[in-house]
């Protein structure tokens, strides 16, 4: 075994980064596939169903916008932005809405998964930096809180910040008007 003891921790961190990047990159490809599928479904529905003139107009407009969105997605559009665009496409057509809803839900979960992966990466990075200067075998309660406060600055979703609070005994999440992360605990 040819491990480098000097760089071992950074080597492992690079491996974790590579694996999480693989997940994120595949996840982005998934989003584009979902939209392409939606395009196929819309084509199919248009062929099979008899729509009113108004519904058909709404449908054609949605199709046109979707084609544009698929093009933009191939240039790495933000997932949240894509979801908003799809919401806007739903227009007043029940038929279009019915098709869009599960797609929007799927993108929502995809977006959350991407954030989960970023959160996991953030915890790993924060730990590897923390232990370069601290000895976890001799840590105090305050060390734990200091570490948790570092995590609260890098973990983005409220749910994950609440998990940090739960595991490190920081109590309930503060209610903040604009939904921004709560401040440090002492």
């Amino acid at each position: 075994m040819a491990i480098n003891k000097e760089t071992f921790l950074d080597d492992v961190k690079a491996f974790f980064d590579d694996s999480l990047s693989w997940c994120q990159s595949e996840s982005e490809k998934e989003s584009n596939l979902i939209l392409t599928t939606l395009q196929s479904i819309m084509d199919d529905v248009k062929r099979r169903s008899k729509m009113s003139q108004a519904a058909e107009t709404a449908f054609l407009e949605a199709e046109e916008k979707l084609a544009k969105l698929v093009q933009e997605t191939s240039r790495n559009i933000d997932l949240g932005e894509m979801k908003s665009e799809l919401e806007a496409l739903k227009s007043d057509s029940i038929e279009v809405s019915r098709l869009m809803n599960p797609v929007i839900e799927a993108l929502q979960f995809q977006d959350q998964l991407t954030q989960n992966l970023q959160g996991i990466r953030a915890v790993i990075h924060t730990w590897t930096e923390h232990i370069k200067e601290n000895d976890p075998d001799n840590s105090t309660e305050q060390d734990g809180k200091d570490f948790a406060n570092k995590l609260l600055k890098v973990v983005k979703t409220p749910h994950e910040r609440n998990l940090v609070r739960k595991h490190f005994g920081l109590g309930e999440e503060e209610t903040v008007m604009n939904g921004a992360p709560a401040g440090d605990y002492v």
Partner: protein
Amino acid sequence: MANIKDKVCALLGDMQVNAAENATQKVNQILEVSSNYLSEPNHEKLKLFHQLYFGAQSEVTTQKSEMNNEVDDIFAQAAAMIDSGKSTEEIAASLKIDEKKESERLQLAGLQKKLESLIAFEDSIKEQLAPVMSSMQFEDAARQRVEHIVKMFGDIVNKSVPKKPELMEEVATSMAEHIAIKSEREVFYKLVLREPVPEHLDSDSDDFFFDLGA
């Protein structure tokens, strides 16, 4: 009271569960999307496929897990032989291949064929089916990769790397035992162990179980 090491491992464990749940929910939505263009029997087949292949107690999961354990056992045997100075050829020749496990591997291959026939849809909808299958495979691969990362992180934290350099080789060996995906193992050997993957360990499955011909 739990120490900082237990707390960070428990936190990452919960984050792993969240990620897996979101991946599963996404596939469920994609399955719902597929109900728009698949006939009801075909849609039911696809749902059954998802349960069989990806369900928590699925037959495939169990067999994959057994196979992974087998690979872990072989790896442990190989690591011990490397430590005792044996050559790659000697190691390959003396590794025990368990006949029962070999039979399980064949059963898994049989099950894969069964699943493939289950999703043998007509050509006209294969293109539309690809995103659903791709989504399922991504769910599985991402879940496995995150699970491996969390286990490996546990090794790092519990063995106090880098404060105890004398334990690093033990940690590296233990970490490698969690890996079950070919491309993952290749990167681990390159970046961490800094050596090529031994040929006799090159038996992992790849990220994707089915070739979608993408």
